[in-house]
């Protein structure tokens, strides 16, 4: 069987203990006047991994694009929640790539 998509696309993700302790799920939503909801969430080791994931996703989304749903990226934020719906951190999408995303 081929490796799972997570392993395939996130080779630097820590694998140790993956089978033993279930990892927390983080949700990466996009917000302007509307919300684009991350309905699936992603299993990640800790909040550090969640910040890294958020940055990567933001870079993939903003790469060569000016915005989403007709709104410039300056109007959008990425808001990261835990599985209880608690907001953990957020950043402006237009800050991505400037070295301060996820802070």
């Amino acid at each position, binding site marked *: *069987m*081929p490796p799972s*998509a997570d392993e*395939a*696309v996130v080779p630097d993700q820590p694998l140790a203990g993956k089978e033993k302790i279930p990892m927390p799920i983080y949700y990466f939503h996009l917000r302007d006047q509307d919300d684009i909801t*991350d*309905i699936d969430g992603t299993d990640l080791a800790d909040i550090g991994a969640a910040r890294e994931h958020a940055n990567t996703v933001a870079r*993939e*989304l903003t790469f060569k694009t000016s915005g989403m*749903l007709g709104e410039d990226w300056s109007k959008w934020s990425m808001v990261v929640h835990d599985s209880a719906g608690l907001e953990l951190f957020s950043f402006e999408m237009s800050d991505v790539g400037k070295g301060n995303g996820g802070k």
Partner: protein
Amino acid sequence: MLDISTQGHRDNRLLAALPSEMLNLMGHDLRQISLAQHHAIYEPGAPIDEIYFPQSGMISLLVVAKDGGAVETATIGREGAIGLHAALGKRLSFTRATIQVAGKFSIIRASALAHLVQDHGPLRDMITRYTEVLWAEAQQLAACNAVHDAPARLCRWLLQTSDRIGNQTLPLTQELIAQMLGVRRTTVTLMAQSLQSQGVIKYMRGRISILDREKLEHCACECYAVLQQEKLPLKIGVKL
């Protein structure tokens, strides 16, 4: 009798384009099988023993990296076949090939087709022409992956996959699509939600339905139009 036995095989465009007598000759060796998602067909470096012509499912070709990750480099549906070049002589697979969308496939042993190719020019010509089309497709995809953004590539990929399987509903998870596009699953989820909010697709766990093909084409990069299965062969002067 033979017409009935070749009926399913004709769902594959390459087989359908062959002269009837040719297909009837192959018919003795052609088998029709159903294969489930994730079924492994080839591994890199392994001999190509059988040639697959999708009737309704889709095959994904993956280049396997040293770290074990795999990136999709091509998909093959009812417009094509994989392993055809093994009918020209013993060949090893360059990529991993797996079933991405379950369905029906016509398969034939490479040795059996090699035998027919020796005596039948039209069959050999078909293999040559199809190889030219694949080569053109690979070049377009290399350019697409380098310069086009993820949302446009997602739209191109959804349209292409829909054409390959002949269905507006794609039984594919976000994980798989993410792997195919070389982006994170979350990125696919957010792009899919954005398309859904515009009424372009309907996204549920494990499947995506195309609701508005025209809008989806508008959101896709120009590579979709270039790669369309009816158009690409004509662009390079090939008639399949």
